[in-house]
């Protein structure tokens, strides 16, 4: 556990930089994390981030397959929006835990 200053606010993060208290999240913090990850946020990003936060809030697991079926983006667009490791980046920016692969 550590505290990190993002967008001028102190937030709790874990050793990988994922926020540990979803209630501390706001759009400015999201933009701050996104900048570190090399992502510039558009309205479509925020639409998807809202969708991700809602999914996590009700306890659903996040997968690229599920995001591809979200109706907001398909898997290919998702990769374009969060280049490299989309699921890891998108969850970090959305202030939710990194999805664990359960195997």
């Amino acid at each position, binding site marked *: 556990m550590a505290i990190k200053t993002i967008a001028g606010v102190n937030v709790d993060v874990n050793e990988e930089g994922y926020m540990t208290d979803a209630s501390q999240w706001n759009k400015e913090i999201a933009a701050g994390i996104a900048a570190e990850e090399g992502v510039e946020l558009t309205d479509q990003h925020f639409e998807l981030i809202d969708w991700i936060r809602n999914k996590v809030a009700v306890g659903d697991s996040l997968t690229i397959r*599920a995001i591809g079926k979200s109706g907001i983006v398909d898997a290919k667009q998702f*990769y374009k929006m969060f280049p490299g490791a989309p699921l890891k980046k998108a969850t970090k920016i959305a202030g939710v835990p990194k999805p*664990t692969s*359960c*195997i």
Partner: protein
Amino acid sequence: MKKLLILGAGTAGTMMANKMRNNLERDEWDITIVDQYKTHYYQPGFLFIPFGMYTKKDVIKPKSDFFPVGVNVIFSKIDKILPKENQVLLDGGTVLKYDYLIIATGTRTAPEEVDGLKDKLWYKDIFDFYTIEGATALASYFKTWKGGNLVVNIAELPYKCPVAPLEFVFFADAFFTERGMRDKVKIIYVTPMSGAFTKPRATKMLGDLLDQKNIEIIPDFNIMEVNNDEKKIVDYGGTEVPFDCLVSIPTNMGDDMIARSGLGDDMNFVPTDKHTLQQKDYENIFVIGDASNIPTSKAGSVAHFSSEILEENLMCAIEGRPFTASFDGHANCYIETGYGKGTLIDFNYDTEPLPGSFPFPGVGPFGLLKVSRMNHYGKLLFRWMYWHILLKGKEMPIDSEMQMAGKKL
């Protein structure tokens, strides 16, 4: 008469039929088990087939050998479950009523989920080894293969027996070395995970083994399509990996019947309480084995450990008591590493695979996260235990709950 209905007579369903027939009075409870196939496959044996160590006859037995006396067996396809009516419809119109239902319909490979996978090169230069057809086709192919890029790709998580693809590349390394052609075969392990495995210590240990065996790993690869004309796999980020032989671990899905019943998630796995094994919406439905969505390995060891939990909790439900058993996600996997040696991992929902000895602290005889000859014998011995002890629902000398004794933090 009250009715217990079990859907699926694979590893999990067969164990439950045996256990519950022991528990429930014959004059009070009818037990019925339904499956569409008559042959039981020893699935851990499929891995050995491409390398000529086992053949088809080593991994099959009739399902009927493993059902206890006093259980009705129906070989039929299942149309759907009507959970509100406590009924199951079979193909052909038969209606089965139940008081309690156990769903044990497992998972299947779904190669059609990746564009170009089940296309013109399927079973020519592209294979799976999670089906008897794929494993035997690959065995014939390897007999005359001249070498090139051997690409092993995991399409998507979750998939059955998470260590099998690693064992496959370890075996391939030994197989082509023994045939004197390892220099002509480049083995590439392409995975959607960030490393060889999910949890840190096992990933490090298994990643080091890949390195020692000169097996290249390409992590974070989420396959978008197989290009059959140019013989390459492409991921969503644009990374391309050319292959001469592609061995795919296709997307795993639950049975289509689950979707028809409206009981599945987007991959047809049934939402299930990970501790009680009760279906999320219906109190008289329980789920065991690969069919559920519980966050642990889809593996026979998990089905086995959770069968003891389900046996206890189902008796609680039947007798109107609160649940007394809670599943911890325990999984235990022998991992073949080639050349007659193997390693072993033991873990659960909360504890990652750790080094140590198993099952007896300090004694073993098996070593956790170590490569040893004894671990390999453990895996071979397991086939006998599977047929003779495990499927019949008898006690195995391993606790269903994961033990910390013998593990080093």
